[in-house]
């Protein structure tokens, strides 16, 4: 729907609704922590950031004269390839899929013995994959630094003239 709407207000509101729906889908698929994150991000921050961008840029999309056929062909081709890739996969929710076999069940068994906390996701996040999380934190910090540097009032081309 983001395709046809000209007014960017409506696009931003619909993306907020999409975030809500995806959070509910995560709850249904047992990923409670992920749903929590998506809920916090989608409800609290992302709408405000999009609106702030709109306040500094434009509100209405201009008419595009882009050809629509070539993107459609490319997208369909990618879709066919991806669906062909899923044909080998085990069914949704299967017990014997390779993803479930080794690491996940091991973590489920050893987390309580090692740390004594019931939330396995937190245990893996902070302890077993601690390096990974350190890297992710640094990425968040770097992105924040980039935003601060970009928007901290350095002069642009127009002001120099």
């Amino acid at each position: 729907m983001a395709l046809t709407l000209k007014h960017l207000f409506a696009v931003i509101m619909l993306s907020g609704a999409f975030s809500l729906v995806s959070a509910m889908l995560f709850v249904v698929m047992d990923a409670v922590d992920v749903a929590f994150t998506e809920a916090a991000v989608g409800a609290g921050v992302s709408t405000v950031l999009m609106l702030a961008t709109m306040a500094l840029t434009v509100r209405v999309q201009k008419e595009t004269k882009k050809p629509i056929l070539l993107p459609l062909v490319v997208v369909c081709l990618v879709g066919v390839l991806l669906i062909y890739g899923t044909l080998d996969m085990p069914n949704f929710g299967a017990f014997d899929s390779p993803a479930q076999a080794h690491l996940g069940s091991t973590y489920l068994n050893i987390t309580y013995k090692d740390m004594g906390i019931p939330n396995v996701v937190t245990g893996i996040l902070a302890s077993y994959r601690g390096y990974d999380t350190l890297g992710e934190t640094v990425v968040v910090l770097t992105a924040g630094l980039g935003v601060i540097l970009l928007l901290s009032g350095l002069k642009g081309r127009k002001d120099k003239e």
Partner: protein
Amino acid sequence: MKHHLILKVITKFMVGVIVLFGLYVQFHGDYSPGGGFQAGVIIAAAFILYGIVMGLENVQKVMPIWFAQKAAALGVLVYALTGVFSIIFGFEFLNYHAISPEHPKHGQHYGIILVELGVGITVTFVMIAIYYSFAGRTPRLDDKEW
């Protein structure tokens, strides 16, 4: 936003509740869904709400720009120092057994709480700093499409 009395009163009440909930998510994350990443976003959302309703000037009295920008780095420092701590006591980097070697289970628990605290601090202040950068900017060009 000078005349919106109801919004102001409700905001003053809700900011405290949201921050409290964020702290619950932060420190109860081992037992229920939650953790540093979520708590950071929630606490930042409280400040964003205050900034929207009360004005940017007032929220920057509570949380100055320089503090938000510098505290963002503090969280990564807490995280990394937890790792360095275990190196000093002769364990691997980020091996939380170093915190209490006779009770490895307790050591792991304390380590997880420390690390989540570092993540939470970073995410909170990065989100607040991003909001300040976006909101504290005057549109330099007038928009013709209003």
